[in-house]
């Protein structure tokens, strides 16, 4: 008995986690572009598209629950499915943070272009790289990679510090920019949360492979 049906169901769920990951990644990148270009139409589309991300998450959750009920998996199989339930929640929340950035773009309204975003694009690049790598580690069951990704979270935290310092300095220099810079600090916060949720995925990778749960990198935020 090789459990072909179960293996194929598990494979399809993992493929769908990657699809959800791609939707989330696109939402983050689009949100940053809309922020840079100040495009309200694009932001509204990101906000609208978040409903599709939510729907995809619920669809995967439904199917995972049914596979658990019908196949009664054990050991690594059970841990993989339990991890999928956590990972899709993290991915959906990451997309919510991207939606948050899109909403901030709408709040910034007619702020002059081009916008100076400082360290925010660098933060976004690292967060997206962490997202991609954490899903790769999940698919490959790569514990070493999962641990390395968590180290990258420290760099995102440092970049957030830099954004904060820049924005505070700018507010002091020109109090008229206080609202704008506060919004940018919120963008940095959203990106930091995205990176932090990638470390959650890495913790699930380690749990799936080893059966042990451990918090591997505690964010300073």
């Amino acid at each position: 008995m090789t459990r072909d049906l179960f293996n194929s169901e598990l494979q399809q769920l993992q493929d769908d986690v990657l699809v959800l990951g791609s939707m989330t990644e696109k939402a983050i990148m689009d949100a940053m572009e809309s922020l840079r270009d100040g495009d309200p139409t694009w932001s509204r589309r990101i906000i609208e598209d978040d409903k599709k991300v939510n729907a995809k998450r619920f669809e995967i959750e439904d199917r995972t629950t049914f596979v658990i009920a019908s196949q009664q998996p054990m050991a690594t199989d059970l841990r993989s499915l339990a991890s999928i339930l956590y990972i899709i929640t993290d991915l959906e929340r990451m997309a919510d943070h991207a939606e948050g950035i899109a909403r901030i773009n709408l709040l910034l309204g007619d702020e002059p272009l081009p916008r100076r975003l400082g360290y925010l694009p660098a933060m976004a690049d690292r967060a997206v790289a962490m997202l991609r790598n954490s899903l790769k580690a999940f698919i490959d069951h790569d514990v070493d990679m999962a641990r390395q990704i968590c180290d990258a979270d420290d760099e995102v935290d440092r970049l957030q510090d830099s954004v904060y310092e820049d924005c505070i300095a700018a507010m002091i220099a020109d109090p008229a920019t206080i609202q704008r810079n506060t919004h940018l600090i919120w963008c940095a916060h959203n990106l930091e949360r995205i990176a932090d949720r990638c470390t959650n995925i890495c913790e699930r990778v380690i749990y799936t492979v080893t059966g042990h749960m451990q918090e591997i990198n505690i964010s300073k935020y």
Partner: protein
Amino acid sequence: MTNSIDLRPADTRQVPAETTLRATLASERPANVIAEPTGDIALSVEDLNLWYGSKQALTNVSMKIPVKQVTALIGPSGCGKSTLLRSINRMNDLIPNVTTKGRIRYHGVDLYGPGIDPVEVRRRIGMVFQKPNPFPKSIYDNVVFGAKVNGYKGNFQQLAEESLKRAALWDEVKDNLKKSGLALSGGQQQRLCIARAIANQPDVILMDEPCSALDPIATLKIEDLMRELVKDYTIVIVTHNMQQAARVSDYTAFMLTDEKTTGQLIEYGPTQELFTTPRDKRTEDYISGRFG
């Protein structure tokens, strides 16, 4: 604790001739993962080997079964789990040409040692079988049957009521104890058999796939009953249903027969660990349904 229990009959039992069949050498054994349960030990299986004629069915099985816990034996057909279970109360003695080597100690006493009465062993270590097998007698007679045979001196009515209550059957049969045991449903019959085992005032109850002939509701009732009974008894259960083992047992043993060795214990440990993070790949493959 050693030798605190006297299982000798009035007459001295014939000691079986030493077998010449060779057990697998320790150096030939795979590195199995056998945990040592904490707390008091009811049964200690030590290097147990068993042959049906010249065919070996158990190979160097060693494990300790803790007191007042449910221990599940799982594994594919032919892995030796039922043989091991039947060895514990010497049911294999009833099969011709069975040879046993090694020891099973019950609270320190070697059950296969000289002078041990298998009938007394079976009174203390009761058994419930796969198919409910009540006698063609009334419910009451079924329950007190063993006690009568064993010369029980107490109040039979009280014993029957107490045993049926413990087996969670009393409320369903109390108004008609004269009804035939065979007139009960399958699940009720199995609980009657459990009541019959309990009435002998055993210390250990062995269950050989006790739910395999029952519907899901009756199965869940027996499982609930096991968790209730384990407060007072040591239970060892053989089951093909891994979810059942995961639900009801505290410790689980995984047994396997492969090309080289028949009836070996591969992994033994706390149930939660064995089903979530098994240490041996063969255990993982079996519980994940990838063979067997």
